[in-house]
């Protein structure tokens, strides 16, 4: 099993498209960092336009490494599923396309093992992608912009809020957020793997994954009460942004943030459970279908 995983990881590392994902992330992050270094004040003015007449605060301090990473994650974690799909959707369909799938399953390994190894390889790729993202969006941003307290702009129902988290209370939240994002993106990897079982080339499952993610994301954010109540809770895309829950700090009755706290642990646990359930169901379905699949290519 370990050997098989090493082979899968070797195959992934040899594909040029693997590095497209890393390069794309680096390009987007660097563009963000450059833009905010050049004119981050404009963004801050936009976010604070309705309070800038009432309060004075140091805008330059507010645009710091922690804040930058949050902005980058906010933007990129919506796009990242596409990059995960590039690799994971190729898992089975890529073998079928090259005609190596039949050869592969003649080896003395079970089809279940094969699927699990493919899934493990896609998960490791996802983790590496997020580690890369953490390095350049968090640590590079800290190097470029420095560290300070972190501002979070949040809409909660009809209300908007500004949360301020002390800088010594931020890092653990990022570790938790990246761990959560790993689970969230693993759902995409499981979905792509599942779809790749039905195709003989990679393009179909990649496009299908992207379409599913896009449609579900749009439905998740459509803000129509009937959909919010009856459809949204059942879409995995509603939980992809659950990592933000770690930055919604709990407050006292006077509105003072409580260090080390999270406003709604139950919601994060619930979201995480739903995502893990999706992974289980998709992986189980992949194993079940692949075991019964008539391999013709």
């Amino acid at each position: 099993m370990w050997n098989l995983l090493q082979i899968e990881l070797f195959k992934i590392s040899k594909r040029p498209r693997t590095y497209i994902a890393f390069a794309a992330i680096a390009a987007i992050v660097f563009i963000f960092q450059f833009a905010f270094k050049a004119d981050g004040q404009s963004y801050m003015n936009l976010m604070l336009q309705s309070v800038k007449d009432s309060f004075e605060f140091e805008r330059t301090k507010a645009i710091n490494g922690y804040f930058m990473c949050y902005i980058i994650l906010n933007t990129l974690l919506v796009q990242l599923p596409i990059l995960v799909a590039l690799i994971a959707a190729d898992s089975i369909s890529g073998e079928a396309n090259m005609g190596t799938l039949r050869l592969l399953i003649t080896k003395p390994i079970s089809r279940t093992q094969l699927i699990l190894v493919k899934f493990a390889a896609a998960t490791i790729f996802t983790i590496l992608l997020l580690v890369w993202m953490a390095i350049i969006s968090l640590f590079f941003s800290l190097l470029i912009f420095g560290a300070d307290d972190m501002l979070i702009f949040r809409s909660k129902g009809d209300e908007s809020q500004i949360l301020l988290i002390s800088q010594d209370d931020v890092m653990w939240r990022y570790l938790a957020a990246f761990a959560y994002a790993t689970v969230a993106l693993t759902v995409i990897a499981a979905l792509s793997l599942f779809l790749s079982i039905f195709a003989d080339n990679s393009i179909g499952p990649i496009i299908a994954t992207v379409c599913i993610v896009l449609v579900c994301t749009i439905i998740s954010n459509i803000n129509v009460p009937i959909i919010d109540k009856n459809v949204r809770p059942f879409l995995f895309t509603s939980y992809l942004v659950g990592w933000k829950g770690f930055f919604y700090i709990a407050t006292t009755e006077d509105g003072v943030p409580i260090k080390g706290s999270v406003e709604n642990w139950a919601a994060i646990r619930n979201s995480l459970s739903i995502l893990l359930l999706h992974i289980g169901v998709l992986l189980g379905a992949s194993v079940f279908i692949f075991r019964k699949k008539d391999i013709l290519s």
Partner: protein
Amino acid sequence: MNLLRFGLVLIAMVSIIVVKAQENVNALIQKVNAKIEKVNDYTAEGKMKTKVVFLKVPVSAVKIYFKKPNRLKIKNEKGISFVPKGAVSINISNIVNGEKYTALDAGMDKIGNTAVRVVKLLPTDDNADIVLSTIYIDEANLLIKKAKTTTRENGSYELEMTYGKYSAYGLPDKIIFTFNTKEYKLPKGITFDFDDGESAKSNIPRGLNKNKGQAEIIFDSYIINKGVSDAVF
């Protein structure tokens, strides 16, 4: 005829009383002012707690710099702080000495167990930003316990002060500064927030409403009349 005479006497008496009261109030303000005037500058250290509906910020350690006549700066030495723009009126001399005014005696009141003289200050300059200030003076100790200010451009402010070891200089140990705020609204569709299933409970801090904010500063120490660099401001 007798009635007319009585009326004139009454008017004359009331006028004398009013003029006398006016003189008393002016004298009282002069005394309070003289006490405040002893402070040319100060650097104070303290803790600031900001209570605003949309703002969730921790209690921050701040340094407050003051220099005559009315320069005041609140700085958070570590981290980010939101300082209400009208906080310059935390400097009391800005109210009683800032602009020319007519002082009117509005009687006595009580703040806690302390009897206070209520004085209304009406600026004589029609274009002044301050429209009306009401100050509550502890006559025995010559301390301003409370001040309410209505401005033309920047809403209304209220200051409540508690005094301790620096009362000889008219400097408070604690200030509660209440100010007007606008509703905060984020531009639509740019935050992609995590909906945790909880409706937005209006968690308005105690004693406030949606349009009011409060900054509470507890002063730990003052360094008085030792000089403050202009670069601070």
